[in-house]
């Protein structure tokens, strides 16, 4: 109760949200700028090559494509602030409804992948740190080196060759919605999520193992715990892992931006109707409102993830928690 009334976390999140706003604005401005440098305009891209000049002109006027860039940006930006992301150029749907349909797929993919990553990498790194230079340690070091060095398309296609073509455990393409059937959904989402998770697993094992080992070999509080007579397992899990989580959290936050980039490839290989798939489509159609909407959502996701990371920091690291409550 007392903690709530003081709630430094609330104040911190407020401050973080304020600094996030210019970042988000920068993201939209940057992407608008880049999109407008694209050669070829949306009108000819959507209407096709045989459209007449008059048709293209009418289309452009209808969608304000003939207005100067800052006017359009201002229109769009004003819309965003009021919650209106505009209308897709290729279909009568609003950008918000396009995103509403696509976002759950990508979100599920990212969350599923993150769960797989943590479930695999944390126990493996503990085993590595328990017996450094042992069989598990050496093996996982080799595998993790491979997993961080493999390109996403290669990995996705290898997974397809092995699990879809050779053994036919999972389908190569296709998507079953979560609302349709949970089993069907997991059946279609597991392989893409594993593909998304593999490089992260390698990365996290390398980080966690190094961090745990460094603590176990160098930190005085580990020696204190040993001198108490605490078992090695307990030292690893209760003392060292706890401290490693702080560093791990930063990485999870930072990884989210890269992870979203990789979803584009994974969704493309497995034909999942997610945001990345839509993005590729929108880019080739010059469907600027949709691209803008997607970029905004990605930007918000990353900024929010960083915000949550910061707040969790406080929960995990008492030093930060108290420094903040004092300031």
């Amino acid at each position, binding site marked *: 109760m007392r903690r709530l009334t003081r709630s430094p976390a609330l104040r911190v999140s407020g401050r973080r949200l304020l600094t996030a706003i210019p970042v988000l604005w920068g993201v939209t401005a940057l992407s608008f700028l880049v999109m407008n440098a694209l050669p070829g305009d949306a009108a000819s891209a959507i209407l096709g090559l045989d459209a007449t000049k008059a048709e293209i002109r009418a289309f452009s006027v209808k969608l304000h494509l003939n207005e100067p860039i800052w006017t359009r940006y201002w229109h769009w930006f004003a819309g965003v602030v009021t919650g209106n992301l505009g209308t897709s150029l290729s279909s009568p749907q609003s950008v918000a409804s396009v995103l509403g349909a696509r976002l759950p797929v990508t979100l599920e993919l990212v969350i599923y992948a993150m769960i797989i990553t943590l479930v695999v990498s944390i126990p493996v790194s503990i085993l590595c740190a328990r017996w450094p230079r042992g069989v598990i340690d050496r093996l996982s070091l080799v595998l993790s080196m491979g997993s961080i060095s493999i390109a996403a398309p290669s990995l996705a296609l290898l997974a397809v060759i092995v699990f879809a073509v050779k053994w036919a455990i999972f389908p190569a393409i296709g998507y079953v919605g979560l609302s349709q059937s949970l089993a069907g959904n997991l059946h279609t989402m597991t392989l893409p999520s594993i593909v998304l998770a593999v490089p992260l697993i390698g990365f996290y094992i390398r980080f966690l193992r190094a961090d745990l080992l460094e603590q176990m070999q160098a930190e005085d509080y580990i020696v204190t*715990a040993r001198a108490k007579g605490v078992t090695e397992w307990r030292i690893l899990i209760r003392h060292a892992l706890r401290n490693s989580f702080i560093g791990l959290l930063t990485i999870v936050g930072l990884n989210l931006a890269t992870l979203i980039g990789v979803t584009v490839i994974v969704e493309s290989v497995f034909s999942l109707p997610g945001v990345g798939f839509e993005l590729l489509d929108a880019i080739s159609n010059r469907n600027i409102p949709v691209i803008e909407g997607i970029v905004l959502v990605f930007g918000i996701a990353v900024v929010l993830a960083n915000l949550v990371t910061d707040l969790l920091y406080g929960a995990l*690291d008492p030093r930060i928690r108290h420094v903040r409550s004092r300031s």
Partner: protein
Amino acid sequence: MAATADAAAPDLQLRPSPLLEVSDLRVTFGTRLGSVHAVQGVNLTIEPRRTLALIGESGSGKTVSAQAIMGILPRTARVSGSIKFKGDEIVGRGERELRDYRGRCVAMVFQNPERSLNPTMRVGTQIAEAVGCHLPVSKQEAHDRAVELLRMVRLPAPERRFYEYPHQLSGGMRQRVVIAIALACDPAVLIADEATTALDVTTQAQIMELLLDLQQETGSALLMISHDLGLAASYAEEVIVMYAGKIVEQAPTKELFAGVRMPYTQALLDAIPRIEMEPHVLLPVVGGRPPDLAVIPPGCSFAPRCPRVQQDCQDTCPPLQQHEPGRWWACWHPLGKEPAQ
């Protein structure tokens, strides 16, 4: 008859059986550049209720000896010789047996209170953990014992302190918590490894007083490890001076300060500033550096820095011998023992 026995016999009768007997302890670290002989044949005995000081500069092997006694040396260390606790051999014990011994038989207070507590755990939890890993207690009992320990180390408001994190405490308070952890299971021997070095002088005195008081209360033996001969002079009953992995002088505190024998001990003593000294006068420094422990010279390891060095010092290493009752030194040309000329 009385004449032959008087040196040892009264001693034997007065002294109870030793808690800890270390004989010919040798610790070697294998490194890429060769073996480093950190401890080269240390013998010492710790009796109940006694306070022993192990003195030496950094690299003299005092901390490594203490870590060997605790059984917390890193895996790269090779240990030989014998460490017996109440007659049971510690060297060569498995990890599981060592765990039962650590904390319960011998406990340790570390040098740096900034770093020897886990920053992400409540101090109470860290003490309760020490209680819980040796005694079959419930969570509540462990908590109560932890609060009691916090009270024992004289932390104000122990109930509240239990829930605080290390960073919320001052250095002295943190060191009290470390002491509470060490005392959690009533160890028979408490090792204080430079326990006051990182603290300011007033806190230093408070912590030393606390350690001695607690020693009185619990009846444990105290092995204090320090580079500070002055500290040893104030608090220890017996002083052991180490240099380059070997004991070079051992004597009861009073007798040692009445007349130092080993030139190295004298050099350490000279380096302590005294109130009666002229201001702005440079303190004498022990010239040179401690020897490389990877290469063992044939002679005395202090010879290169010793002001009294002679040819025999270079050739053969003086053994540590009992020259007077209770007084041991390893020197061919001890101070105060010049041959009459």
